[in-house]
Each structure stands twice: as structure tokens, then as C-alpha cells.
């Protein structure tokens, strides 16, 4: 029984292949302008790595494919589409069975999902109107600061006194950051300030749905340790981050696909 979950995000497509409920291959690539092609390429990419290990499977021979993410409706070859909220919940619970609050920070959206003890979605909110509190916010400000977005986390850990970013708007935050650079504020302090700003924004959403322990952070931005630490400080609780946090939505989709085949 081989199934696939594919998560078409605004920036990247993620695919997870499950064989008898075991993750056997994953892939991540840039979405581009055609969601359906990107989804197909992502699954094929993952299948290729399977073939290299002597397991030959084609897209057509997959038992079930579930699509999720913003572009899910465009993936016509998928057998089913499920909302990202449901997939995030299923994926996060699979890795951390005790999780009650799932925070997903993606490239262009963020979500906070509260789950019941049994893992049912009880309350959720999402923001994809405004860049603040998303990966794009980090991306824009990393460019202004002049460091790679992947280095932000590590650099921010050296901060002694985070520089306060008061604007929630990305455009205004950018000019605040520029003025800090002019004033020769150490960049690690500026970066830590940027992370705090994201944490504040997410914390506001968490308060809206109500937080229950344990808390998990998923989505690409969860790879930034600075954001994790800033959010932990804000919430006052430790936060669980799975390995490959950007794959959780696709993992959830794959698990739902497996369930549809009656193996879960």
C-alpha cells in the first residue's frame, strides 16, 4: 500500500510518500506558477528517490493521493483534497500525540489550530492577508539586513538586547529596520527584534483561539530557531518542533490518504 500526500504552498510544494504508514520518501520544490505541474513534479521527485532504492512506483500506481495547501484545488490528479487545517492537525498529532495547539507559519500565511484531546479541530484562525507573521516578512527583512534568511535564527541567538520593531506592517517594519541599521544597532539585535515581532503577531492569534499544551510549531519558518525561542518566551511554554517542519501538512495529507485506503 503506497500513498502520497502533496501540500501545495504559496512558495513551495511538499510531497510525502507513505508505505504501510511509514514515510519512505519526501521532496520539496518551488511551486512556480503552475500548481498542478509542481505537485506532479514533487511526487515524481520523491518517487525517483524510491526507485534509486530499488522500489519502483509510478504516479499512476499510487493507491491514493491527497492534496492540500492553497493550490490543492488545482491538483486534478489527486483523489481527494483536504484543507490544510485538517492536514496540519493530523500530521502534527502523528509526530506529537500530545499536541493540542498547532501553529503553522508558512511563506505567505500563518495558522493557529486548537485540537481536542482526541485530536479533533476545535478552533482555528488563519491569516493570509498580511505578510507580518509569515515567512515573507522574514524574507523581506533578511534582504534589507543583508543576510541569508537561513542564517537569521542562529544570528539572533547572539542578541543581547532585541531592537523593538513597533510596526506590524511589513513595509513600515522595513523602514524601521533600515533606521536601526543607520544607527549602527548590531544586526543580531535587529534580527531578534524581527523575530519578536513575528512572535507578537502569532501570540495574538494564539490568544484568539486559546492555547492548550502541548504546543507544536510547524511550517517552513519553524526551522528558524530564533522564531521558536521568541515564541516560547512570549507564550511562556516550551514549543515542540518536528524534524522537517515544512513537511507536516503533506505528511497529514498522506496519513489521510492511508486512512482512506483502510490501513491506518
Amino acid at each position, binding site marked *: 500500500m503506497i500513498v502520497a500526500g502533496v501540500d501545495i504552498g504559496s512558495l513551495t510544494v511538499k510531497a510525502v510518500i507513505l508505505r504501510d504508514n511509514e514515510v519512505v520518501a519526501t521532496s520539496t520544490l518551488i511551486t512556480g506558477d503552475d500548481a498542478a505541474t509542481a505537485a506532479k513534479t514533487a511526487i515524481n521527485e520523491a518517487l525517483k528517490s524510491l526507485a534509486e532504492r530499488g522500489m519502483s512506483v509510478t504516479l499512476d500506481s499510487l493507491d491514493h493521493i491527497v492534496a492540500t495547501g492553497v493550490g490543492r484545488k488545482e491538483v486534478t490528479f489527486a483523489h481527494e483534497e483536504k484543507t490544510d*487545517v485538517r492536514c496540519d492537525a493530523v500530521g502534527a498529532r502523528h509526530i506529537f500525540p500530545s499536541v493540542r495547539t498547532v501553529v503553522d507559519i508558512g511563506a505567505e500565511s500563518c495558522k493557529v489550530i486548537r485540537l481536542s484531546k482526541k485530536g*479533533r479541530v476545535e*478552533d482555528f*484562525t488563519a491569516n493570509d*492577508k498580511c505578510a507580518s507573521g509569515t515567512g515573507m516578512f522574514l524574507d523581506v527583512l533578511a534582504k534589507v539586513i543583508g543576510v541569508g534568511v537561513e542564517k537569521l535564527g542562529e544570528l539572533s541567538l547572539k542578541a543581547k538586547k532585541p531592537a523593538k520593531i513597533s510596526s506590524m506592517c511589513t513595509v513600515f517594519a522595513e523602514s524601521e529596520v533600515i533606521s536601526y541599521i543607520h544607527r549602527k544597532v548590531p544586526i543580531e539585535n535587529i534580527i531578534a527584534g524581527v523575530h519578536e515581532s513575528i512572535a507578537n503577531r502569532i501570540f495574538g492569534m494564539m490568544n484568539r*483561539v486559546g492555547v492548550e499544551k502541548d504546543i507544536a510549531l510547524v511550517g517552513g519558518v519553524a526551522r528558524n530557531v530564533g522564531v521558536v525561542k521568541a515564541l516560547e518566551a512570549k507564550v511562556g511554554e516550551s514549543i515542540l518542533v518536528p524534524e522537517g517542519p515544512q513537511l507536516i501538512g503533506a505528511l497529514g495529507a498522506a496519513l489521510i490518504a492511508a486512512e482512506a485506503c483502510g490501513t491506518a
Partner: protein
Amino acid sequence: MIIHYGYADGSGEYYLIVDTDKCDGCGRCVEVCPNDILELAPDDYGKVVVRVKDEFVNSIGYICPACKRRDERCENVCEHAAISYSW
């Protein structure tokens, strides 16, 4: 399940909140909405409930507060108090 449709931005918080456990899918709210932003659709667990159409989620703050002065608005016509606002 409680779903917060909307967003928070520099000017405030704009959420239309639906409690899908209370909603019975009668569609009264969909009928009275003057801007046609609501629809009935199955949720993640297959129950048909009211939802905000995707294309309107990010403009709730410009559309919905104007209904404050209307007596016949989604919040009021719902017999189960399944809809509430954050403004």
C-alpha cells in the same frame, strides 16, 4: 469547531466567528447577507455548515461592519447563535 474567518491588521481585528457545532446549516444567514459573502458547504468532517467564501475572507473588515445598523444580519437571524463578530 469554531472557525475565525478574517484577519487582524494595523487598524484592528476583523473576524466573523462561526461555531460549526451550533450551526445546523439552515441557510438563513446566507439569505440575509446583502453582500453575498456566505455559503453553505461541508466542513472538514463532512457537516454542511455556513462558511465565508474564500474570496471575501480578506475583505471582511471593509464589508461586514457596515451591517451593524441592520437588524436583519447573519448574527441576528441565527436561532442558534452560531455566528458572532469580533468588532
